């Protein structure tokens, strides 16, 4: 069985962000909005929980941020997934999968 990541809470947020960025580069508000929407409101980020996470992921080389100007002339900092981030997403998914399987065996949980 795979070793569990001790910082499971932070790991779940990382997984959520990496997963939405897998689809396309997004800016902070859009990342938070999509995670909230796709989790039916179960996962909700404040600025204090989202941006430090985004900055850490950028420093680790999982994402690359660039300032982009929207057609309306508004500047937004967009985060895109790097090859390293994509690899990390795969590893994180495996870790969470193992975690849910373990919980399922113990608690008789049903997976969606």
């Amino acid at each position, binding site marked *: 069985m795979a070793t569990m990541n001790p910082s499971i809470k932070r790991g779940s947020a990382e997984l959520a962000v990496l997963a939405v960025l897998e689809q396309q580069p997004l*800016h*902070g*508000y*859009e990342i*938070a*909005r999509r995670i909230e929407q796709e989790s039916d409101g179960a996962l909700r*980020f*404040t*600025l*204090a*929980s989202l*941006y*430090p996470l985004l*900055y*850490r992921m950028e*420093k680790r080389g999982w994402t690359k941020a660039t300032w982009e100007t929207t057609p309306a002339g*508004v*500047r*937004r*900092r967009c985060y895109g997934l790097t090859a390293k981030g994509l690899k990390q997403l795969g590893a994180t998914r495996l870790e969470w999968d193992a975690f849910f399987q373990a919980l399922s065996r113990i608690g008789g949980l049903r997976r969606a």
Partner: protein
Amino acid sequence: MRDWSALVHRHLASVRVDERRRREISAELAAHLEDAYDAALRSGCAEAEAIARAMERVPDWGALAVAVERSADEDSTMTRQAITVLLPGTTMVLAAATGMSLVVSSTPADRWLDPRWQVHALAAGLAFLFYLLLGAIGAAWSRHVGGSPGERLAAGAFPLVLHVAVVGLGLGEDMLYAFSRGAVGRHLDINIINMILIMLVAPGAALLLGVLPFARRSARLDAQ
């Protein structure tokens, strides 16, 4: 329409990150709040409610400031100060040393003993302007790479390190000479005062004058 940039900037003013990073973070967080506000308006909220919806994203400004600072702390402070102080500062020291060496090597020996005060005043004026320029370049460079006002001051005044070293050597030599003659008296006092005025006070004043225009926070850069 609410000024989200000013709001974020005010709340993150105490966060210890370099100026450039602070501006970038402030702009990004302000954009997030503005997007949340616009989305609430589009969904039919009145302005007051839209503002409240946006502000729900920041239940605790203090916690946000701490979280941002912690994530920035992962950058090495040494690395930042090497960029904002040491690099511009040591370059200005090298420029000062090169400038002084060129002047000394290219000036005929008899010119140093020229009895006309105008010659010495012109030389002192040019040296003052040269140091004023060094202070300005050091501080402007530090500001350009995101130095705080204190870091700009340190970078601009850095060539004084060279002067302190020269004065220290000169004083040490003088004191040894005086002790060897058994006369630590008038000769030493006059030398100390002259040396401090010429080697520390005058160049220090020139450097600080050069730093001044770049020491204040830039309204234009802060607004970016």
